């Protein structure tokens, strides 16, 4: 399946990324209102804390997605090996690790929650999985950005070989 060019997935990917960004921004806007409001559903302190984490993690998520949109645009414009993209990858891994750390703090705090144990254990496991996913993704992006850095260096050398 082609990712770029005619009859490719590029339009679908672009729409998908923009929808994700819109969801993140919506969570940023709506999350604040929900957290501030005193709903009876959120009386449990662990639920409220998780909601705050979800709300706060939507900010680095929005940053992460906007970086991916930028990388995809440069891919379409054939300016892949650009220092701007290296910066975008760096911002992406920082955002991903921040999200991982947020969920890690939340999962550690859940461990000490004196609330309904059955529910907490399932939720804790899910939070640990999310934490691991973001941390692994962040580390993967660190490796990718280093590869990218070398690729840019080789490209520059190639461009300056007459």
């Amino acid at each position, binding site marked *: 399946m082609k990712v770029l060019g005619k009859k490719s997935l590029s339009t679908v990917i672009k729409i998908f990324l923009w929808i994700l960004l819109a969801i993140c921004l919506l969570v940023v806007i709506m999350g604040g209102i929900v957290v501030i409001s005193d709903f009876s559903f959120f009386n449990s302190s662990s639920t409220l804390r998780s909601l705050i984490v979800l709300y706060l993690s939507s900010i680095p998520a929005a940053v992460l997605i906007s970086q991916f949109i930028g990388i995809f645009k440069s891919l379409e414009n054939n300016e892949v090996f650009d220092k701007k993209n290296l910066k975008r990858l760096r911002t992406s891994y920082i955002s991903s690790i921040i999200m991982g750390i947020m969920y890690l703090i939340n999962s550690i705090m859940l461990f000490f929650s004196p609330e309904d144990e059955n529910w907490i254990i399932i939720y804790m496991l899910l939070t640990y999985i999310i934490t691991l996913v973001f941390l692994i993704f962040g580390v993967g992006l660190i490796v990718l950005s280093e590869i990218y850095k070398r690729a840019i260096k080789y490209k520059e050398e190639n461009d*300056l070989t*007459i």
Partner: protein
Amino acid sequence: MAIIVNLDVMLAKRKMSSQELSEKIGITPANLSILKTNKGKAIRFSTLDAICKELDCTPGDILEYRKN
């Protein structure tokens, strides 16, 4: 860099312009300018061969090693 390209000196000796040389050896004037201004990272043997052929010189006349 310790390697200096003395292409401008050779061009002056042969009374040839950069434009003329670039046309004769088949590289763009922009690339020749990179070479002349010592901004290049490497030079292909084929390019060096073409330059030497056109300017009737040896690689030593074009390239010079200067200790930093």
